[in-house]
């Protein structure tokens, strides 16, 4: 049977079209035309080119080397300059423009943003009770913000352990000095985390007041027989010594 000429021609045309399309798709056009790569690359370029407002601590070092050096030696060494002084990229770019000079915060509220007492803050982080700690003074009157530790280390424990001091102040143990139970090495004032104070490791520490044989008048109502009461435990494993009458 003879194939009609129209069909042969149509077949040839379709074959040409298919060949051209295949050639375009797999040879002429690059693979990136069919992937999301180009517009993603454009987004990456756009994101990377965005201007920033924070210059970074190293940008401050060259001009403010004195403050930088002081800060590096003090307890605030880990804090970036822009934490307190705010974003400074505009100031770095144009040092003479006073409208963008970073502010110096001197008000109490600014320091209290970090150093006010909040129960959720980690233990050992220096916190003060604003209503009790030198109420009328600005913080910068005693503390250099770049080297905040005062010339003399704190004389009482509540300078750092305010949370415990506040609990203890309400408890039956309010009149006991911290050193009654804890031995505090001299080094603890300088390196709090490396030279830790001791905790009583024997029941005798409490027996001094709470044993029936004791003559301590303040503990008259809380004497227990140490030979029968919770024999295998150190007292503070059950009783919270800073608030002994609190919930168990």
């Amino acid at each position, binding site marked *: 049977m003879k194939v009609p000429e129209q069909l042969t021609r149509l077949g040839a045309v379709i074959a040409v079209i298919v060949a051209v399309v295949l050639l375009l798709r797999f040879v002429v056009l690059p693979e990136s*035309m069919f992937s999301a790569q*180009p517009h*993603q690359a454009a987004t990456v370029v756009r994101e990377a080119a965005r201007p920033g407002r924070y210059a970074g601590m190293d940008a401050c070092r060259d001009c403010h080397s004195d403050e930088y050096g002081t800060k590096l030696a003090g307890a605030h060494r880990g804090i970036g300059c822009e*934490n307190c002084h705010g974003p400074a990229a505009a100031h770095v770019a144009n040092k003479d423009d006073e409208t963008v000079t970073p502010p110096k915060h001197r008000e109490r509220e600014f320091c*209290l943003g970090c150093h006010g007492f909040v129960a959720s803050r980690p233990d050992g982080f220096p916190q003060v009770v*604003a209503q009790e700690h030198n109420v009328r003074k600005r913080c910068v009157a005693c503390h250099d913000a770049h080297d905040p530790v005062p010339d003399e280390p704190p004389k009482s424990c509540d300078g750092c352990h305010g949370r415990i001091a506040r609990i203890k102040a309400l408890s039956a143990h309010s009149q006991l000095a911290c050193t009654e139970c804890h031995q505090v090495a001299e080094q603890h004032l300088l390196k709090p985390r490396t030279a830790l104070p001791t905790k009583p490791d024997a029941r005798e520490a409490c027996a001094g007041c709470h044993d029936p044989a004791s003559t301590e008048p303040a503990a008259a109502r809380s004497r227990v027989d140490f030979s029968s009461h919770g024999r295998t435990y150190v007292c503070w494993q059950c009783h919270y010594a800073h608030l002994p009458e609190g919930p168990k």
Partner: protein
Amino acid sequence: MNKREFLKDVILFFPAAGVMQALACQAAGEEMSASATVPYDPSQHWYGMGVDVDKCIGCNRCVEACKAENGVPDEPYYFRTWIERYTIHADGEVNVECISTKTPEQRLAEQNQPIDPGVLRTFFVPKLCNQCANPPCVQVCPVGATFQTRDGVVLVDEKRCIGCRYCIQACPYGARYLNPHTRTADKCTFCYHRVTKGLQPACVEVCPTEARIFGDLKARADRLVRFERENEIGVLKPDLNTEPKVLYAKLDGEVR
């Protein structure tokens, strides 16, 4: 139009389309070459962040810095990063509140509260986009506007985003929001414009207690790699297999 003219037009159409596509190709090539001029190789990095929960003091400085750096709207319900306060009570009740939604005055007024003896423990947890290695938000985007870069940061192409909010629904960490000005999805970029220049992200730059550590998980000697080695690392919702790259140290079991 007869058959001959039709076929002639069809045959002429293809070269014309080819020219158009070649032009589009050239435009794409220009964008690619623009990225090539930056002396930064994304394939050499794999960014992550370490968060030491035990160091966060809830000062909210990271949130303010993030808003300033990235132009996040000021309203206290748009965040790229935010801080939550967990309060775990003796009766097993767990309260979570976002302290970043409060004004500085409100936070100051909440200080010096008497200690509640019914609270077992309470702490702050900074949250942000976890920059998942296996990001659910990327999978659901119907237009391919959000994607993971080769250095492991999930970005949004705001020119391509249609604001459908699928990704906001898909994110198990609630880290995305719809920017009311651009009407597109917005999220933490690890301050991509800063880290590619060797700077720290703004939140890390200002964190006063170094609770946040930014680093490169591909680097052999890096603070984050050491952080990962020295701490017991937890991630948020590990059961979802999103493989977060925000690594938490001392993470409480109650944190979701």
